């Protein structure tokens, strides 16, 4: 039967149409015109307003100054990368010389283990933040999805868990941080730690704060399976496991993804606060250090970080949205 081939062609057609429509200059003008004008107006207001504000660290930075600092941070990163490459080149030359001169194996091994001890650049800090939030979010999802399914399927479990969830949900990450720090310090005692304590503290704080939307939304999705579909499973006499896997779970995936998307958004916000206080070498620490530094460029550099944080948060959200659109069978839901 060729119905599969026909369907593939149709889907390809649809994708091509969407792509061509996106590239069509007429659509560009319509869709981008208003947002671009809005952004330009915003930049003008920012520039005008900033000039009026005089702080102890100088005039509040306008877009021009922020752009300048962004370029500086990028150049610093490039410079540091060059220094790092040069260092490793020199190191390799030393290793080769040592091997040629027949030095003992232990000395060569020690040379090979030498690490570059340069400063962490802005880009490195972005990467650290992303890794930390990914860890915290994945850990939260691993816990939240099964718990959500359990409370959705079982009323008794729901009554048991609900008060605790409602009580812990509104707690700010800044309140969790001291507790998490003390517990990690006490429990994570190792002479050769794989992860730094600040990384664990930040990741666990993110986990604690972004569990809740996923648990709640998964629970609602699972509990709200269409009664008609449940009746079908009763007529078919589906076993408990078959019913759960084949009917309940697929039916609740859209709500689950809504929860995951909310959780990721909250996780990213929490991360910055947690990093600031736990001193995890990410964007949070960057802002804190700049603030403590108090140079005339600090405010502009902090603004760069703010914009980068916002942009990354936007990208993370759009990523989750794409996943949600792929996983959602509910064509009538408007996903934005």
């Amino acid at each position, binding site marked *: *039967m060729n*119905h*599969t081939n026909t*369907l593939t062609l149709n889907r390809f057609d649809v994708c091509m149409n969407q792509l061509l429509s996106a590239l069509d200059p007429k659509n560009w003008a319509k869709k981008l015109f208003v947002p671009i004008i809005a952004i330009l107006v915003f930049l003008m207001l920012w520039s005008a307003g900033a000039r009026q504000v005089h702080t102890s660290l100088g005039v509040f930075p306008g877009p021009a100054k922020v752009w300048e600092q962004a370029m500086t941070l990028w150049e610093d990163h490039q410079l540091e990368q060059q220094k790092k490459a040069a260092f490793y080149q020199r190191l390799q030359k030393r290793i080769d010389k040592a091997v040629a001169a027949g030095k003992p194996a232990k000395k060569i091994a020690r040379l090979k283990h030498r690490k570059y001890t340069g400063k962490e650049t802005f880009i490195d800090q972005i990467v650290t933040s992303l890794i930390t939030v990914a860890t915290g979010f994945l850990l939260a999802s691993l816990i939240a999805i099964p718990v959500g399914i359990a409370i959705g399927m079982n009323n008794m479990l729901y009554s048991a868990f609900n008060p605790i969830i409602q009580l812990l949900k509104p707690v700010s990450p800044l309140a969790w941080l001291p507790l998490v720090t003390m517990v990690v310090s006490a429990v994570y005692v190792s002479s050769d730690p794989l992860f730094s304590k600040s990384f664990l503290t930040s990741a666990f704080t993110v986990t604690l704060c972004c569990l809740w939307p996923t648990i709640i939304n998964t629970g609602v999705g699972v509990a709200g399976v*269409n009664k*008609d*579909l449940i*009746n*079908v499973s*009763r*007529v*078919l*006499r*589906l076993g408990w496991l*078959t019913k759960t896997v*084949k*009917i309940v779970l*697929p*039916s609740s*995936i859209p709500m689950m993804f809504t929860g995951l998307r909310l959780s990721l958004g909250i996780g990213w916000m929490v991360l910055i606060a947690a990093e600031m206080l736990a001193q995890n070498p990410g964007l949070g620490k960057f802002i804190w250090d700049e603030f403590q530094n108090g140079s005339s460029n600090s405010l502009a550099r902090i603004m760069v970080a703010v914009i980068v944080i916002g942009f990354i948060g936007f990208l993370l959200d759009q990523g989750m949205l794409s996943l949600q659109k792929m996983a959602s*069978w*509910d*064509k*009538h839901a408007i996903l934005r």
Partner: protein
Amino acid sequence: MNKYLEIDHVGITFPTDKGALTVLDGVNIKVDQGEFVSLIGHSGCGKSTVLNVIAGLLQATQGGVVLEGKEVDEPGPDRAVVFQNHSLMPWLSVYNNVRLAVDQVFKKTKSKQERHEWTLHNLELVDMSHALDRKPDEISGGMKQRVGIARALAMEPKVLLMD
């Protein structure tokens, strides 16, 4: 003589906030094997309720349903239901919706290839062979209902209940 399907003095009363609501009272229907029965009545008189009791989706508060001499109080594929709201799984294709029922009912008695062919056969009966890979939201209401009928027929039920 015992009939094939007997609905014997069935009554059902729902507890509501405003007191007990009696929807069915003293319903008696005797059906022969191979007989085709139509329940006609004004909207809200309890036709779907009778159907749900026979299907076992609802428990009668009085009386009972007897099929081939045995009382039934649970749903099962021997009393297949074609639902008023078609109740197709939105994430499964037309083919897979019927295959789900076939796999469940015949997992021990038919081989994979036989189940595949049986699914195709039943969809052929309702003239849906051209739309096997479509999802429920891509077909019309009439087509959805046809898939529901194919699913019910595929279960080879003793009683076919069509709401």
